């Protein structure tokens, strides 16, 4: 059985394996620095009839690729866990419905992939399931439609804004030996420091990231030096710097191995993406491509993966609500 080793942290007694991953990305992401790591690059406008249908197809494709890599049948999956950013998490639901297997839909915005990993790991350790699929996606245009202005409307984006990543990531979680394993995780709490600027979500999420990272360090008695990579979800340039400053104020200054999926996925100087990438698919696809491949090839052996999520909705924003943020940490070892 898993053991609680801190106020928010759980250590798994029998480490749970990430057996395989699959990633699907759009054109812009394909042109980015991680382009060659993605399993499949698709035309984000025409892969499905609409942006939403494209996202659904990308979502299910990521699972399919992950299954194919280990030649597993979807019937061997006891539980599908998935989420996305659309209202009523329809991308995950419609994608997973074709498998006709038990399903838990989750939502913690852009931190959904970490939440899914934690649920899958807990379920497997508890013996409730033997093998799970976790999958998360986002699509630039389906998100713009839901949260912002029409695509063809000519407006400037704020200097602090980020670009939603069009990508999906799927992973098969099980018990096979020899694969990278989840050894412990910290479930974030909702951190709300009264940020209201929805054009600056990186800054709004930075405190949650810093809080979860430090909480995990304290519970596991580790620090940056104990990891090859500590990587947040989608803070992008601006939020990443805020997180760095917050960590420095707590004494974490030697942090050369600290990075962020939103910074990795795009070349923010060359690509027109504002501060960097965001979206649930950002951390999911970067983990399922770049990070997993480095783990698999043993170039990385100790990773702390900390996706971050901004939990507001357009309604709460219009009602002058703040941006509650969350970050979930998953410690992975090779």
């Amino acid at each position: 059985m898993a053991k609680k080793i801190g106020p928010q942290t759980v250590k798994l007694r029998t480490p749970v394996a990430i057996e395989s991953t699959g990633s699907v990305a759009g054109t812009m992401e394909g042109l980015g620095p991680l382009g060659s790591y993605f399993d499949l690059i698709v035309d984000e406008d025409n892969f499905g009839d609409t942006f939403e249908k494209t996202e659904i197809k990308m979502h299910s494709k990521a699972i399919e690729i992950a299954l194919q890599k280990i030649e597993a049948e979807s019937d061997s999956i006891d539980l599908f866990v998935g989420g996305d950013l659309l209202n009523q998490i329809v991308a995950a639901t419609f994608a997973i419905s074709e498998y006709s297997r038990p399903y838990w839909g989750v939502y913690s915005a852009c931190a959904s992939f970490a939440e899914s990993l934690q649920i899958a790991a807990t379920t497997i350790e508890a013996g409730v399931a033997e093998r799970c699929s976790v999958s998360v996606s986002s699509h630039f245009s389906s998100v713009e439609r839901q949260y912002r202005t029409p695509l063809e409307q000519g407006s400037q984006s704020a200097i602090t804004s980020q670009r939603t990543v069009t990508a999906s990531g799927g992973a098969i979680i099980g018990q096979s030996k020899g694969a990278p394993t989840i050894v412990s995780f910290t479930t974030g709490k909702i951190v709300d420091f009264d940020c209201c600027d929805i054009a600056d979500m990186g800054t709004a999420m930075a405190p949650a990231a810093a809080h979860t990272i430090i909480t995990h360090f304290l519970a596991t008695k580790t620090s940056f030096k104990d990891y090859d990579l500590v990587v947040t979800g989608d803070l992008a340039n601006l939020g990443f710097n805020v997180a760095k400053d917050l960590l420095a104020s707590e004494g974490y200054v030697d942090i050369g191995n600290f990075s962020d999926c939103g910074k990795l996925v795009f070349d923010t100087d060359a690509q027109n993406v504002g501060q960097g990438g965001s979206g649930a698919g950002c951390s999911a696809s970067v983990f399922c491509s770049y990070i997993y491949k480095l783990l698999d090839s043993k170039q990385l052996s100790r990773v702390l993966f900390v996706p971050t999520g901004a939990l507001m909705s357009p309604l709460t924003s219009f009602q002058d609500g703040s941006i509650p943020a969350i970050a979930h940490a998953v410690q992975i070892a090779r």
Partner: protein
Amino acid sequence: MNYLWVFLVGGTLCIIAQIIVDNTKYVSGQILVMYVVAGVVLTALGLYEPLVELAGSGATVPLTGFGYSLVKGTFSAIDEKGFIGIFTGGLTATSAGICAALVFGYLASSVVKPKTKI
């Protein structure tokens, strides 16, 4: 009509909006509403007409000009028809623009698919 004034007045109205959008939390949709209402108020106070005489399209093409047309139309309809003009004047004066935008928008939607920006 001096083309220089057209450019200067039109450009300056855009600059004011740009400064608001860059330095406050207001976004373009909110600024357009402000501009229309500002145009209505300034016209009603008699302050916008001189600008239109000076700069022509420089004052009528920006959205404040939409407010100007609404008020001018309302006033002349009231002068002509009395009470009923309060209700008919504004939309009558701006009907061409609204109709054109709607019809062209509908036609465009039947042939065009939105594209993800790369």
